[in-house]
């Protein structure tokens, strides 16, 4: 049985909004990073659904790109978070609001 494309896209949109809301309301940097991951996966899901609907492999190729990019982003992000914690002894994103380092 096939799932209609609309359902897949709707799920992707809901996931994206949940991720966005997480980025906007959370102050903890780790939670924000996780929310960004949710948003990325939502975008990836939309690609796969689109690719499946046109029965081509393009969507899946794009998803692999996104995975690679997300992996790189997480590694950089986590490194930054460690630096942030060493500097401010907290993971509150608002504490790093000044440009004076």
């Amino acid at each position, binding site marked *: 049985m096939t799932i209609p494309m609309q359902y897949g896209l709707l799920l992707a949109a809901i996931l994206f909004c949940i991720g*966005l809301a997480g*980025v*906007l*309301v959370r*102050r903890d940097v780790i939670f*924000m990073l996780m929310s960004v991951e949710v948003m990325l996966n939502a975008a990836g899901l939309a690609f796969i659904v689109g690719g499946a609907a046109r029965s081509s492999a393009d969507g899946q190729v794009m998803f692999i790109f996104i995975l690679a990019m997300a992996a790189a982003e997480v590694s950089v992000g986590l490194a930054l978070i460690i630096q942030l914690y060493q500097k401010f002894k907290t993971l509150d*994103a*608002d504490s*790093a*609001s*000044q*440009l004076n380092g």
Partner: protein
Amino acid sequence: MSELLWLIVALPFAGSLLLAMAGKHLPRLAAAIIGVGSVALSAIVMLILGLDFLHGNPAGVPIHQTLWQWINVSGFSPGIAFHLDSVSLTFVFVITFVGALIHLYAAPFMWKDEGFARFFSYMNLFVGFMLLLVLADNFLLLYLGWEGVGLCSYLLIGFWYKDPANGYAARKAFTVTRVGDTAMVIGLFILFTTYHTLNIQDILVATPHTWAPGSTIATTTAFLLLGGAIGKSAQVPLQTWLPDAMAAPSPVSALIHAATMVTAGVYLIARTHVLFELAPVVQSAVAVIGAVTLIVAGMAAIYQHDIKKVLAYSTISQIGYMFVALGVGAWSAALFHFMIHAFFKSLLFLGAGSVIAVLHDEHNMYKMGGLWKKMPVVFWTFLVGACALSALPLITAGFYSKDEIIWQAYASDKGSITLWLTGLAGAFITALYTFRMVFLTFFGKAKAEPAYRQGMGMTLPLVVLAFLSFVGGFIQLPDNMGHVTLFSHFIQQVLPATTPTGTAVIAGLPSGHAAEWIAQLIAAIVSIAGLTLAYRLYYNKPFPAAEPVRNPIQQFFFKGWDFDLLYDKVIVQPIVFFSRIDKNDVIDQFYTGLASVAGLFNKGLAATQNGKLRWYAMALAIGAVITLTILLST
């Protein structure tokens, strides 16, 4: 040969550019070679070209050279183009030749100055702009040179910028000449709107056919151009800047404020003589202004104690003579006096500069004295210059040039007995202040010791200029003495000859050669009388070595007839007053408002840069939503 014309102008500009770009890194000797060499080369090119012009071109066909087109806007296409005829050749000769001598003198004179390369860069720039002024074939290029020399004058008056007084003098010179320049620009606008061209020769050919003699438009235009000439040539009422301009180093005073730039007004009037002949009112105004100036400045010169100020007022006064000559239509007499005056006045300035330099920057003549034994070369050359300035009869060039003006002030159809008498009075005053200066500086008890002897580089220009002030007069002798007309013949290729009156100015007086003899005799007696009076009053008198005590009348003359005070009360103070009470008028409020609106925007936008990551993310999300909405709804 004539295609070399552009080199005369280009060489000084190239020298100036080179010194401005690399002057700081060049050794002094290299800077001196570039600075002096560029003008000297220019003078050599001028001599070659000038001899060619004199010999190969007896009819005086003007040489014309177009380098390139400057602008081309709907038919208005002034070019970078040069026009060389006998009038411009006379000026080019003085500018390059006397200029080269002054540059040669300036090299040792300025040797110890830290701004050595800067000095020569400005001087070369000046020579370039001055040549542009006299060679331009259109008024736009002439105006470029006109403002360029004004700029260089400003830069060089304020050359020793560490003293605020010099900066003030520079600003004063710039502002006062600007008054005249504004009038001149308006005059050029009138010419352009009438003829749709600024080409000088085209306009001069067209004017007599389009404008009736004495018509309002011709009078207005000539009057406005005269305004420019008055400002540049420091004539009454715009003469106040020149005495202050003596803050410049002496070679600058010799080159700019005696020989060349201040005579640009004479050049302008001679160049546009057709216009002035169409406006008889303005032409007689030229003569009257000249006559008033020569008396005003001469009287002021008598009471100065600063040797350079004497020479400054004397320059104003001698240019007054040139204006008288222009005003009575004695064109070649004016240019002849310009040339001779350039020789002897730059000689006097260089001599005064030598005296000032060896006495440790001492300007006060009452603190000098007895220098004739200690500085023989400077003394004898200075004496030759002084004799030429006071027009001692028969031997000096100044006699032949000034006598011609005084004679034409009487004998020309535009002359009058009043102008003649004024000229004679001026000659008396000239001899008086000149020899007062000589006696105070070089005779009497020595009050200061010269610090050093001068080298060849400084004495050679003095000797050459003294030679020229001596023999320069013999190229043009009056009708009754030899009747040599080399110069006037040369000038009359371009400018008309003076028309004599048919009758004697006053009935009963003789006319013709007899009158000329009598006039010359009177002029000679007058100048010798001035000399004698100076001898009686100032020779070997034990003056205290200080600024002389002056009574109020002498103080009035000393201050240059208090023109500065008058302008301060009538113009400067009211403007300052109004600007003080009118600090917050509508226009100011508009601009203040503009500034505060910009400040508000700044505050609003700065508030968005709060450094909070989640705000930025929110802004991104909102922006994306809005963009999507717009994209999807259309």
